[in-house]
Structures are given as structure tokens and as C-alpha cells.
């Protein structure tokens, strides 16, 4: 009767090497991934503020959250970041990858790819600090630049109407080098015969891109699209450095709202609740876009 169990232990023993090899990773992930995830979900249901004992309060944090005006404002702002990441953030790497792909010389292709990748050698926080400098209304260069095209000086990060746009624009020219490499690799993986056939058929460049390239690299574009959603929804260090959510709540995003609840107001329970709701929103958005964008590998 206990035969299967004995066999299980036997095969566990036989593969003891495998478990030993896995041990360091499992300990690390247990401590710094699984435990925090479980705690985050659990603490959403607790009143846990400052140094006080955590008290179970059921859905009270969620009720507070759904009445929290700042949370809705942060979601509306996040929507702008998501929209931008999912459109321009996908389109620009695609355009540049197509340009690269059409270059005849492989040497030049390599040079340009290397140059785009070279931009990631400056830490992103520093790039943001440089933009903060550029947006400085009196000394930074942005007001000089817009003056050329006849726009009056702006407050940029300090202005109610301009702050959100200024943060988005600091991603200019929106070419993520890693995304570029992924799309470029996908283009190179398209069988040469298909492109040759399209030339024989007298297919123009545009038609070819729309009817051959894009359908065949849809998997990679979808990946970038979904990464864009996840990034737009949860990233908040830009907002934190550039405006800290201000002026008012003009640039507040859910991640920053959570950070402020947790680390400024020491309200860990409420912050966990914001994290919980963000997780659900991200899952829903990912599943929906997974369903909406059909690719070849789905069948």
C-alpha cells in the first residue's frame, strides 16, 4: 500500500544531486520572493501602521482605497504612461529595427546596433537627472529649444499642465536598445526566401513590412507591448525623482502612491493593499492583451 511513497523517496534519494544544486536558489527565492509575496497579500487585510502590532481588519483597506481620490488620479496618470509605452515605445524600436535591417552593409548594422546599446551605459537615474537639469526653467536648455519654434517659456516639471508630459518626454527618442535588439533579431529570423519572393512579386517596401514582417514578428512585438504595460503600470522612480508626484497630484502614479503610503506615512497595510490592487490590474491587462493579440504560436 505504501509502495508508491517508498518509490518516491527512492527517486528523491537517487536525484539528491539535483536537489543540492537547487538549494541555494530555493533558499534565496524563498526569502526574497515567495515570503514577501505571501506577506504582501496577507498584509493587505491588516491595519499595520508604524511600530504597532498588525491587526486584521478584513477588507477595510480596500474600502479606503476605493474611496481614495489620489488613487484614481494616479491610475489616470498611469494610463498616459501605459498608452505611451505601448504605442510609441513599440513603434520606435520597430522603425529603427526596420531601418537597420534594410542597411546593405552588415558592418554598418553592427556599428549602429552597438551605438544604440552604448546609450545604456549611463545609468537611467542619471539620464533622468540630466533631464531635470534641462527642464530647469531658468538655466536648463528646454526653454531655449522651444523658443526656436516660437513657444513661450514653460515651467516644465513645475507646471500643472506640463509636468506629466515633461516626464513622458524625458524618454525621448523612446528607442529602448534591448527592445531594438529583440525586434532586429526577429526580423533577421524571417526566412530570406519570403523577402526574395516579395521582391519578385513586385511588392513595395510598405506592403512587405505590413504583410510579411509585422505578422512574422508579432510575437516579439506582443512581448514588448506587454512589457510596456507592466512598466507603465508599476515604474515610479522617474516620477519620484523628477516631481515626487507633484505639482499637486498631477504626476502621481500608483507605485509612487504605494511608496509614499509605506515609507512616508509608515502605513504598511494600506501600501500592501495598493500593491495588491496593482498586481490584479497588471494581471488583467496582461491577460486581455494576450487574448487580443493573436500570434502564430498560440495555435
Amino acid at each position, binding site marked *: 500500500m505504501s509502495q508508491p511513497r517508498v518509490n518516491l523517496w527512492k*527517486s*528523491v534519494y537517487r*536525484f539528491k544531486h*539535483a*536537489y543540492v*544544486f*537547487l538549494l*541555494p*536558489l*530555493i533558499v*534565496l*527565492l524563498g*526569502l*526574497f*520572493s515567495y*515570503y*514577501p509575496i505571501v*506577506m504582501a497579500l496577507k*498584509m493587505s487585510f491588516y491595519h499595520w501602521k508604524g511600530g504597532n502590532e498588525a491587526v486584521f481588519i478584513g477588507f477595510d483597506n480596500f474600502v479606503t482605497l476605493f474611496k481614495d481620490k489620489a488613487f484614481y488620479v494616479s491610475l489616470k496618470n498611469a494610463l498616459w504612461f501605459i498608452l505611451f509605452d505601448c504605442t510609441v515605445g513599440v513603434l520606435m524600436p520597430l522603425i*529603427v529595427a526596420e*531601418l537597420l535591417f*534594410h*542597411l546593405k552593409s552588415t558592418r*554598418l548594422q*553592427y556599428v*549602429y546596433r*552597438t551605438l*544604440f*546599446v552604448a546609450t*545604456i*551605459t*549611463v*545609468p537611467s*537615474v*542619471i*539620464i533622468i*537627472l*540630466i533631464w531635470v*537639469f*534641462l527642464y530647469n526653467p531658468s*538655466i*536648463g*536648455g528646454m526653454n*531655449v529649444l522651444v523658443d526656436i519654434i516660437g513657444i513661450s517659456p514653460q515651467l516644465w516639471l513645475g507646471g500643472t499642465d506640463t509636468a506629466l508630459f515633461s516626464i513622458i518626454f524625458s524618454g*525621448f*527618442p523612446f*528607442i529602448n536598445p534591448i527592445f531594438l*535588439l529583440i525586434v*532586429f533579431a526577429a526580423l533577421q529570423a524571417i526566412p530570406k526566401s519570403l523577402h526574395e519572393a516579395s521582391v519578385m512579386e513586385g511588392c513595395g517596401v510598405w506592403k512587405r513590412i505590413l504583410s510579411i514582417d509585422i505578422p512574422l514578428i508579432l510575437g516579439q512585438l506582443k512581448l514588448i507591448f506587454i512589457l510596456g504595460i*507592466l512598466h507603465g*503600470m*508599476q515604474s515610479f522612480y522617474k516620477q*519620484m525623482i523628477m516631481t515626487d508626484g507633484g505639482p499637486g497630484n498631477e504626476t502621481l502614479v500608483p507605485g509612487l502612491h504605494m*511608496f509614499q503610503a*509605506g*515609507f512616508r506615512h509608515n502605513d*504598511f497595510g494600506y501600501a500592501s493593499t495598493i*500593491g495588491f490592487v*496593482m498586481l490584479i490590474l497588471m494581471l488583467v491587462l*496582461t491577460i486581455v492583451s494576450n487574448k487580443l493579440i493573436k500570434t502564430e504560436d498560440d495555435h
Partner: protein
Amino acid sequence: MNKNKIASFILIFLLSLFILFSFFPILIMLLTSLKSNMQVSLGVFKFPSVIHWDNYSRAFDAVLPYAMNSIFIAVAAVIGVLIASSFAAYAFARYRFPGREILYYLIIALMMVPAVLILIPMFKLVVALDMLNTYWVVILPQIASGCIIAVFLLRSFFAGLPEDLFESFRIDGAREITILTRLVLPLSKPIMGTIAVLNFHSSWNDYIWPLVTINKNALKPVVTGIMSFSNDYSTDYGPMMAAYVLASIPLMLVIGFAMKYFVHGLTSGAVKA
């Protein structure tokens, strides 16, 4: 023929324009780092008549300790990721042990978990473990998060290695650990190199976590250290930008040396949707 030339001219022009745009903030940083405050106020886009190299000497002493901290943290995180993920990926790729599928999917599922969700419980955890203001408080979570994608990449690479190689080692009576260190790891240098660079880069860029866990100046990594530097020098733009340049140099060197691995590793289909 002529038409082809015009087409490739347009391609090169557009690509160069995009490169220029991509380097725009970096060029501003380099330009401003050579100016005095007076010259900055004359115009951000103007070239300075006199070059102020002394900005760099002023910034150097401030940035060096932070940069050393970052180098230590990044190297430790990279080594940790390479060891833990290659052992685990090897186990997943080469053994059919009970629980293999479940464990693998439990690990891969972590890719979907947003970093923001675990920020606060992880902070509470390291407070309880009394790890605040140590190097380990930054290194260990970086190893854990870096391993997730590394296990994913390495497992498919290890699984693709031909079985005959393993057989020949086993016939010679090699122990499992010998097979891993003598056969598998030497063959996986390119993919290991890619993983190392990716993790060095993300360690160097890590901002929010070190910001909340290390407030002792002597231990701060460069990205959070530079924030306190820019607050002190907030109106001294030349030295501030020089500090930004210096803070990027180690990352430039690492990525520069590994560029071939990096560009090839990521384009050879290592990352597939």
C-alpha cells in the same frame, strides 16, 4: 543603382539622426561637465571658451567611494547569480527528479510578479533580520531577482547540449560536479557573459531598494550616493555633471568589453517571445 544609393543614404541619415537623439542627454552631460556656472548660465548648448577640467577633480573624490561600493555590490551580485542560477538550471535541464515541473514553473511565474508588490514586506523582512545598512541587504535580493531570468535562459541552453558529451564524461567516471565545472560551464561562456552583463547593468541601476535600505553614506552605491551629491551641489552644475560622467564610467567599461557578447547574445535568439 542610383536609386539604391539614395535609399541607403536616407537610411544612414535617419539612423544617425536617431543615434544623435539617443545621445542627446549624454552629450549635454559631457558638455556641461566642462563648464563653470557662469558658462552654463550663458547657454546650455554653447561650447565653453575655457574648459574647466577641475570640475572632474572636484567630483572625483566625492564619487570614488560610492563607485567602489557599487562595484563591490555588482560583482558580488553577478557572481551570486551565475553560481546559483547555473546550478539550478543544470538540475532542471539534466535530471528528471520528482517535482521538477512544479518547481520550474513556480520559479518562472516569479517573472510576472511586479517588484512594487514585494517592496514593503521585503523591507520589513530585512529590518527584522537586522540587515539595514549592510552590503548584503542590496546584494542578496539582487541575486534572487537576477536568477529568475538567468535560470530561464540557462536551462534551455543546457538542455540543448548534446547528450554524447555527458556520456563520455560519465564513462570516465566523472562526478556530477566535475561534469558541471569541466564540461558545461566552459561551453556556456557566451551566455554566461550575457547574463553577467545584464546583471551588472541592473545592479548598477538599482535605485529604489538601496535608497530605502542604505542611508549610511559610506555604504551607498553610486546611484543613490549621487543623489545626495547633487543635493549638495544642486547649483554647481559643472561638478555635478562631472560626477554623473564618473558614475557611468565603470558601467561603460564593463559593457564596452562585453559588447560583442551582449549584442550577439541578445540577437542570436537567446531572447525569444
